């Protein structure tokens, strides 16, 4: 059964990609992409129910593996992909109508969207760390042409930077993986299995600590680059602001979590092998640096898509920081934050795209009085920002509060105070800019209207979910989060 489930998880988006490559009609491309994302989401929930029952599943030959952590992130990624695929339909129709996008671009968009989903699933169910690497590099390649989608000077520049920086990062990660392989070669009985995460975990205590420590540095820098951890985050604001909004949303809610997932896998391994605070300290430092680095760029920002990109740098920092604390409570907070941040990011990137389509600008100064021009999107924008920046009664408040309490409880008082300081400054920056966009008198010549009703309904559902998670975490979800946190405990 495990083989069937794993084949379905990666087979569905592959089949969809092949079908997209063959068909060029707009309607067919739309149906394929939405169906593929929806069906993959179903398989991910199936995977979740299987790991709740059996803890872990792996395929007989040992290449594929899943546990509470991979299933949890797979559900988040596929859920984001489904929302993004649904939103893309209305978004691209509108772009085609206003002649920003031609038929060939439309085809390329849907094709690469499916390839992108496939590469993310590949990472999430790989047991072999080599496959994990191949999948991660493939996510960069799948999204590169999407970042350059609008073929402006600035988008090509962003895509160039994105591919070069991420490829360098990922090459360093490969060296880290080779070092991990080296540290295991003498202890894992069959050499072919020495790259399998599950076999590495069994012999974790016998891996050479010195080599593993060095390996982890390269892994952290490499996958940290993909996740957008400061100071390796420099591609992120450019790529997020140049890519089409639904793609930015999927990068912020899906790709970031996939890169974090790879980091977590190695984090668990290194913790099990060394049994000391080596990896935790590195995570605490990089987490705080990412949060701190985001503050000035959020306070002095012109473009709202870049604002969201720096917020993504901050949230990666929050999650890595929480992982660094390393208590069960902190892991719970980190996993909850992963989910609420993904929902908030999708909501805000898509809402920002509504604003951009209405005002034909992503410069915040040029947007004002959105509440009278596009009342629904403007409401989503302001409420979404409260949700994103961790304000009660939204989910991010609960997760950030949990993380800070865990920080104080485990004796990390100074880092936790810094954490609060950064979160509050970023909140202030966001509210300052967003309230100026939403309130005030609208500029005279705002031509575009709001997005279609279906897209707005979709965003409404996301907002409702954020509100719900702030006041009540349903028991099944609680169990999923606890399972994921249990995997992190090792």
């Amino acid at each position, binding site marked *: 059964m495990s083989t069937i489930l794993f084949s379905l998880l990666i087979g569905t988006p592959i089949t969809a990609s092949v079908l997209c490559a063959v068909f060029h009609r707009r309607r067919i491309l739309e149906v394929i992409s939405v169906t593929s994302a929806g069906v993959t989401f179903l398989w991910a929930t199936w995977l979740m129910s299987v790991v709740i029952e059996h803890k872990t599943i792996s395929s007989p030959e040992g290449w594929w593996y899943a546990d509470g952590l991979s299933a949890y992130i797979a559900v988040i990624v596929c859920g984001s992909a489904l929302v993004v695929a649904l939103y893309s339909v209305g978004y691209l129709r509108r772009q085609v109508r206003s002649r920003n996008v031609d038929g060939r671009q439309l085809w390329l968009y849907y094709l690469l969207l499916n390839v992108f989903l496939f590469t993310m699933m590949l990472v999430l169910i790989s047991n072999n760390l080599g*496959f994990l*690497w191949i999948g991660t590099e493939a996510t960069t*390649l799948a999204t590169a042409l999407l970042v350059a989608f609008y073929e402006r000077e600035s988008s090509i520049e962003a895509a160039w930077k994105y591919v070069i920086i991420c490829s360098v990062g990922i090459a360093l990660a490969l060296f880290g993986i080779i070092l991990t392989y*080296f540290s295991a070669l003498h202890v894992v009985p069959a050499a072919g299995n020495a790259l399998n995460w599950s076999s590495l975990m069994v012999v974790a205590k016998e891996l050479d600590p010195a080599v593993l420590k060095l390996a982890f540095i390269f892994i952290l820098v490499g996958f940290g680059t993909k996740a957008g951890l400061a100071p390796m985050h420099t591609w992120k604001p450019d790529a997020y602001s*140049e890519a089409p909004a639904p793609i930015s949303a999927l990068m912020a809610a899906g790709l970031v979590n996939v890169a974090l997932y790879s980091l977590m896998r190695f984090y668990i391994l290194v913790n099990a092998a060394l049994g000391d605070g080596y990896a935790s300290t590195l995570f605490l430092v990089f987490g705080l640096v990412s949060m701190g680095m985001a503050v000035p760029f959020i306070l002095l*920002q012109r473009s709202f898509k870049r604002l969201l990109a720096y917020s993504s740098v901050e949230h990666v920092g929050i999650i890595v920081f929480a992982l660094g604390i390393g208590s069960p409570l902190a892991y719970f907070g980190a996993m909850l934050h992963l989910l609420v941040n993904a929902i908030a990011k999708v909501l805000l990137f898509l809402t920002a795209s509504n604003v951009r389509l209405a005002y034909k600008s992503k410069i915040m100064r040029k947007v004002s009085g959105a509440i009278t021009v596009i009342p629904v999107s403007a409401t989503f924008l302001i409420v979404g920002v409260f949700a994103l920046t961790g304000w009660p009664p939204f989910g991010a408040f609960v997760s950030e509060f949990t993380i800070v309490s865990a920080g104080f409880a485990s004796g990390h008082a100074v880092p936790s105070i810094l954490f609060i300081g950064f979160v509050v400054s970023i909140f202030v920056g966001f509210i300052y800019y967003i309230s100026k966009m939403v309130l005030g008198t609208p500029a005279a010549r705002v031509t575009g209207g709001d997005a279609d009703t279906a897209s707005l309904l979709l965003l409404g559902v996301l907002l409702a979910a954020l509100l719900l998670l702030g006041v009540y975490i349903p028991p099944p979800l609680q169990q999923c989060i606890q399972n994921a946190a249990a995997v992190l405990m090792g």
Partner: protein
Amino acid sequence: MSPTHIQSIGLLIDICAAAILVTAFLIVSSRNLGFYIRLFALQSIFLGLVALLVVIGYGEMHILIAAVLTIVVKAVAIPIVLTKMIDRIQVQKEVGFSINITVSLLLCGGMVIVADSVAQSILAVQEGGGSAVSRVLSVSIALMLIGLFIMTTRKKALTQIIGLLTMENGVFLSGLSITYGMPLIVEVGIFFDILIAVLILGVFVFRINKTFESINIDALRSLRH
């Protein structure tokens, strides 16, 4: 295989590794884009030879395919793609520097020393100092550092691609030296990714050329903050 054979194969591997390092230095001291590509192809041929020698000397058959792929993909296919690219866009072939050649070479010499000390500390875990192949680890780390150096100090888009590929060569060589390469299917996947990456970067070079009228990455300046 007799010990003398093993010894002579070890010697040949050392010679190839030295040749790889020399090509990296020649790239650093080169002013012409055409040389960059040809030197990279030469470097990849020597890399393929190291892989072949590992197959012959240590009987690691699964590397044979990786060796053939190195030569076909990195020494033939990628250089052809890159040469076609610079011919088509008729770029000015002179490379701009932000650090001059003499200083660059001195810095790269320093990197070799750093790389060697890192390599020794990694190999310290192996009893008996390791095989002839593990000696090559210092060259592989030096290659990664020099690749990174080329990317950061040379100003053409194409030199960034060559820098990245040099880095990748370094990573491949490191795998070859300490673990006799990754499992075959992983190696094949990695080659596939690299080839796609070069093609995508090639597409961007065309577009950069079209929109900026040069492939000097100094022109990539519009995105700030």
